[in-house]
């Protein structure tokens, strides 16, 4: 199945209650698949085409206020339009899933794959100090698996989660094992999980539930920010996910996520054939970033090559991790931009040029 179709299928199967979206290439198949599947007949899931990404993220904000599993998907320019809403959702501490099937930018850019929304996704993106939980699938199988995982983490932390993928994985066809169906939560389950904050109508027996990101009193607003930051520190301690390939004896380690990681898998093979001891670190959570893993590798590694479809964004986090380790391991970046996916040979060549020659 196609990556984008799998996202839709996974949403239905994980008991998602609502999808609100707006068409944009290269991810329109997500909503198209949902509309063909008509999940409202099957599971009761609501699917609505909004008038804009601005509207769809605000529909998500409203719908997520009910304590149910709500999602949207878009691609880079659309995510920029959603930035305001995402900031509100983070500020109001609502769980939801936002999928970004990235394309090349800036501006209208191109419809070809890119990873240049890395900063936007992991550093915040909208206004204010907030973080999203960011998952980066590298296969169609992970497109399936991460939908359920993203909802699980979003509800665990009452925080928006993002799946950051790109046009290549969105359009790619691969074999996939779809998840089993999970029933949507019942109203009783929602009351138990989220009854103390969800806006579902106030009985006389409880106080008002008010969902807002507004607090005009600075001392209270700072308190809110402290609470958010504590939550982000907990995520950093408990939710880092990554994969390592042949890193145990590696002199050089590629750091790459998503499509770039797939390219690097092949590049590791080519480099090993050439007798170079090369491994791959693939961050699965981009936020929280696997900083500790890099810090631990640092004494044994001669160099890290951050391979990205950006002008060099994640490399900053790699450098920061090395800096935190107190070692002076060499860090370099290699990438392509504007919708170009690097070839494995290019990556190996970059490694040789930057570290070995």
């Amino acid at each position, binding site marked *: 199945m196609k990556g984008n179709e799998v996202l839709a299928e996974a949403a239905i199967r994980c008991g998602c*209650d*609502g999808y*609100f979206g707006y068409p944009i290439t290269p991810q329109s198949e997500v909503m198209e698949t949902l509309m063909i599947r008509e999940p409202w007949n099957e599971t009761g899931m*609501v699917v*609505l085409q*909004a*008038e*804009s990404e*601005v*509207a*769809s993220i*605000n*529909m*998500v*904000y*409203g*719908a*997520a*206020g*009910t304590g*149910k599993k*709500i999602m949207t998907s878009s691609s880079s320019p659309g995510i920029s339009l959603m930035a*305001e*809403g995402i900031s*509100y959702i983070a500020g*109001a501490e609502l769980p939801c899933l936002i999928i970004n099937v990235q394309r090349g930018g800036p501006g209208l850019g191109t419809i070809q794959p890119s990873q240049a929304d890395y900063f936007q996704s992991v550093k915040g993106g909208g206004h204010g100090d907030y973080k999203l939980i960011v998952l980066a699938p590298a296969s169609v199988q992970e497109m399936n698996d991460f939908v359920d995982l993203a909802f699980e983490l979003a509800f665990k932390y009452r925080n928006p989660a993002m799946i950051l993928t790109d046009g290549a994985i969105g359009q790619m066809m691969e074999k996939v094992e779809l998840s089993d169906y999970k029933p949507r939560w019942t109203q009783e389950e929602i009351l138990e999980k989220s009854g103390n904050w969800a*806006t*579902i*109508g*106030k*009985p*006389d027996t409880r106080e*008002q*539930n*008010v*969902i*807002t*990101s*507004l607090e005009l009193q600075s001392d209270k607003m700072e308190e809110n920010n402290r609470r958010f930051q504590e939550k982000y520190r907990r995520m950093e301690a408990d939710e880092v996910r990554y994969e390592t390939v042949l890193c145990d004896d590696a002199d050089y380690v590629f750091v790459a996520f998503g499509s770039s990681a797939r390219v690097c898998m092949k590049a590791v093979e080519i480099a090993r054939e050439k007798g170079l001891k090369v491994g791959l670190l693939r961050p699965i959570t981009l936020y929280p970033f696997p900083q500790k893993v890099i810090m631990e590798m640092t004494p044994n590694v001669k160099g890290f090559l951050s391979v990205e479809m950006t002008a060099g964004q994640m490399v900053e986090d790699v450098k920061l991790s090395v800096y935190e380790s107190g070692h002076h391991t060499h860090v370099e970046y290699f990438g392509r931009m504007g919708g170009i996916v690097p070839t494995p040979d290019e990556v190996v060549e970059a490694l040789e040029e930057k570290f070995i020659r």
Partner: protein
Amino acid sequence: MELQEIIKPENLVYDKTRLLTDKLMHYCPGCSHGVVHKILAELIDEMGLQDKTIGVSPVGCAVFAYNYIDIDWQEAAHGRAPAVATGISRINPEKFVFTYQGDGDLASIGAAEIMHACNRGENILVVFINNGIYGMTGGQMAPTTLEGMVTATTPYGRNVERNGYPMRITELIAQLPGTSYVTRQTVHTAPAARKCKRALKKAIKNVLEKKGTSFVEVVSTCNSGWKLSPVKSNKWMEENMIPYYPLGDMKDSVKGEHSDN
């Protein structure tokens, strides 16, 4: 007769609205918001809707509406209340969802959201407070500011060549097949407030009966923004606002039916 003999539950003629909270309202004296809040609180209580109502407050003076009416609320980004209400209502269609928006929120930054929510016929109530000015940010021009009206951003009066024309957005909304009841009211006199309450009750009934979007504009005063006393504001509104924004029902039909008037 002793005073104590008179103070008995059976002699009660007026009481504080049950669903208005005890929080001190931040609205300026003479502002229409307080009256509209009270009407809404009365109706939600009288119609037994407290436990199924979710209000969506805007950005503007009414941003803190959630402090005053004792129901569940969600506070929306500027102009996005109709999208937020769409999300809530689509996911929990058995609930009663309403937005409460000012003219800047609804007719300027949120023009797209209100048009499309009304065009989809979302089963929500929209309460639209039109006082022709941005009150919260200090009295700047709104889309509904009258020609020649002085505001902080039109210090020499609204010039239509430069700023465009005052927008009658409610007339546009009435054209959309998704709306069932579209009306323009005021609350500046007791009879007007009673009439407005009847209109809001009808609007809420329509929403509960899933007839589509009901839209109630309340032409309002902003005495601090207009820099007039509350009494003079009422007079100014009657003489200037109401001729441009005539009162009455613009549409009263069920979803999908075409309105004759």
